[in-house]
């Protein structure tokens, strides 16, 4: 049986290895899913943010977390004008339309924000709209009245006069059972459940003029990952962070270990000045601090993740690993089978790549597997330090934003927990597999 297959067979006896492999497979599946469903350019576009996300609430928690603790925080309700019937009356020169945007509000907590997006089309004479809030009891609260351009955003919850009239922020005042007078304790207000209406009375000044838009009653929870301060759905970053983290870790680990190994083997094989140069380079490189160099490059040049990856690999090649591999390869260089290969005329390159390197691959594989999360963490650390890639959604970026917005202080624990959990899961998966591999392939640890 080949040593590899034998190793795999033995590996199956470690439950930790199976668990680790399972985690890694799950992460890989996630990564593939992310890349397939959200193309790279789309991910970048989404993460750039802006109006794209205007229909999502700010800093909403994940739905499942709220429900898990028995909460009933509202989800976001979107009521488009297109769905509401239009009643129209024609007068001389003007048309008056009336639309009732009707929705049921059944949650026991208040929404986080109310916005009305309206736009007119068909004529350059802007229509005039009067918006009136009708509670389940039939109470009518005038909200606003204004001309509507091509795209208007009426922030009902930001309406200062309304807030003054209601005695509470509109998103609370409009949904509370008792109308609050000034000075009422807002904590005591209760949600009035039932059917609400927004009455839009529009005066059109042209035959062709039309009104369209939607009312958005923002919830306090959104999706499985929640949103951030820019209303971006965190699931995008959590999903896309997976392929980026894995690619960064894998490429950095492969790039450093394989090249390090080959360079160490070349040094050991050629000896003399080749070895001396490699040794000195390594010694210089070992005392160079990686993180400050990356910070410097990030600050002065560019924070592109691929540039960072390149620097990590280049600085990682002449790392302490060279010394370790050199120590392992030195006795192998003197192995009789190497002399035999020399004697039948194998070239230097063949001896290095086919006879020396494969000999320590079994010991290398576990090191390599445990090295992957190290680089994943490095990328996250860079992002947390503000040196993350500016356009790519990564786990580190989420953490950076969370820290920047004092997420924990505000109680947005999900913002920190979910990327941290994914990072830890990655570390755990690779570590479990790596340590088991070490037991299988490292002869010194192999228990009899």
């Amino acid at each position, binding site marked *: 049986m080949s040593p590899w297959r034998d190793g795999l067979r033995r590996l199956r006896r470690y439950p930790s290895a199976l668990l680790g492999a399972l985690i890694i497979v799950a992460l890989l599946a996630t990564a593939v899913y992310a890349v397939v469903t959200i193309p790279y350019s789309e991910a970048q576009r989404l993460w750039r943010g802006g109006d794209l996300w205007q229909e999502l609430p700010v800093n909403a928690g994940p739905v499942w977390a709220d429900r898990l603790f028995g909460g009933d925080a509202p989800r976001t309700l979107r009521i488009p004008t297109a769905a509401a019937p239009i009643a129209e009356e024609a007068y001389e020169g003007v048309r008056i339309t009336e639309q009732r945007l009707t929705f049921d509000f059944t949650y026991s907590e208040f929404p986080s924000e109310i916005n009305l997006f309206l736009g007119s089309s068909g004529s350059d004479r802007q229509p005039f709209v009067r918006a009136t809030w009708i509670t389940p009891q039939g109470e009518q609260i005038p909200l606003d009245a204004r001309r509507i351009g091509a795209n208007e955003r009426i922030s009902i919850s930001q309406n200062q006069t309304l807030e003054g009239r209601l005695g509470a922020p509109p998103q609370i005042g409009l949904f509370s059972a008792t109308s609050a007078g000034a000075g009422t304790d807002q904590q005591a207000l209760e949600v009035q459940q039932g059917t609400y209406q927004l009455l839009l009375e529009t005066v059109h000044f042209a035959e062709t003029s039309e009104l369209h838009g939607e009312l958005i009653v923002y919830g306090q929870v959104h999706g499985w990952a929640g949103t951030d301060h820019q209303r971006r759905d965190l699931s995008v970053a959590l999903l896309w962070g997976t392929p980026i983290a894995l690619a960064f870790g894998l490429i950095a680990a492969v790039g450093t270990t394989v090249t390090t190994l080959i360079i160490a083997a070349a040094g050991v094989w050629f000896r003399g000045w080749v070895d001396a140069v490699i040794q000195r380079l390594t010694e210089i490189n070992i005392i160079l601090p990686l993180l400050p160099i990356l910070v410097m490059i990030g600050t002065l040049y560019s924070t592109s993740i691929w540039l960072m990856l390149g620097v990590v690999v280049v600085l990682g090649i002449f790392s302490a690993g060279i010394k370790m591999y050199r120590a392992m390869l030195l006795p192998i260089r003197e192995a*009789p*089978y190497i*002399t035999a290969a020399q*004697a039948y005329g194998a070239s230097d390159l063949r001896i290095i790549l*086919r006879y020396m390197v494969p000999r320590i691959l079994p010991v290398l594989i576990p090191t390599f597997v445990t090295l992957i999360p190290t680089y994943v963490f490095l990328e996250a650390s860079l992002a947390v330090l503000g040196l993350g890639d500016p356009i790519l959604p990564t786990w580190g970026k989420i953490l950076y934003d969370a820290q920047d917005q004092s997420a924990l202080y505000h109680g947005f624990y999900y913002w920190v927990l979910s990327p941290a959990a994914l990072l830890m899961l990655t570390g755990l998966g690779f570590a479990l597999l790596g340590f088991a591999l070490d037991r299988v392939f490292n002869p010194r640890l192999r228990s009899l």
Partner: protein
Amino acid sequence: MRRTTSVSETPGSEKPGSERSIGERPGNPSAGVATATRGTVATGGVEATGTGAVTTGGAATPTAPTYQQPHQPLLTVEALQTHFELRQWGFLRVGSVRAVDGVSFTLDHGESATIVGESGCGKSSLARTLLGLHRPTAGRVTFAGTDLATLRGRALKAYRAAVGYVQQDPYGALPPFMKIRRILEEPLIVHGVGTRRAREERIAAALEEVGLEPAHETWQKFPHQLSGGQQQRVVIARALLLRPKLIIADEPVSMLDASVRAEILELLRTIQRQHRLALLYITHDLSTVRHYAHRAMVMYAGRIVEQGPVERLLDRPHHPYTRALLAALVDPDAANAHQQRPIPAGEPPSLLHPPSGCRFHPRCPAIMVGRCEHFDPEEAHPRPGHRVACWLHSR
């Protein structure tokens, strides 16, 4: 023996269209390594020597030149020196280890010779120099008429194919992570031999020749799945694959069990005869020499102190060192337990600072004070083909 029949088949199975002429007709010296062509006159003499050696066994004296014709041996080593410089900080010369220090001998086509010596006498360095793994410091090695020092590139590669190497530690000599088939395919790939199919056939033939049939079963295995003797057979098969003219076997049996030693030595001898190969058998154990070589050379501290036909050297040794070696050896006998063996005092000298004059003089029981420690001994010829470097025998 099954082995013998398979051996005789193998040379016949070679395709004449093969581009490698080396080793195809092992007895024919005109198949030079680096396209060296020589007069056909020599052929007859060499053929005669080779056949004579085989038919008359160990009693033949293959070194005895045929005086009628100019005779060129396969391998000529003249005053060879291989020194290893000791340097400090990579450049400062602080001394040199004189591992091989003036060795001369010749080896004919189809002749088998043995080099006997203790560890550290330079015999392995000599082997590695002959294999082209160390550059000689001085002296000349001529193989089939070509100076080894002039070989470069393709010619050097061809030389490597013409010289097979069998090592001491059979397990270490096989890469542990490769299957036997891959191990044996490597030299063929390196030398660009044939298609995969043709290589497989050649590997199978070699495995059968060394008695590891069925080949397709053996080559599925990893080295550690074979016994020491079987591993050494694989090493021998590898040495044979490129159809060499000379095999250098450096302590091929010293790490094997006593009962397996005879088997491997027997195999080497059979192969050497079948292919009319020259064999240089290097060992520290004189007791494994008698039936497996025509000629023996005894090496001490970088030099050959005595050489001659095996029987004569074992039965009538001349050099005090050879005598000491022979006296130290015992055959199994209960009486051994009750007698002390005469052992020369001291230890082999350091090759960094070898003694002046005769290198054996500090330990020699027959030292002639005033001569041995000052002057290198002249070579004496007690018999044709028997040479001794000792003042006792040259006057």
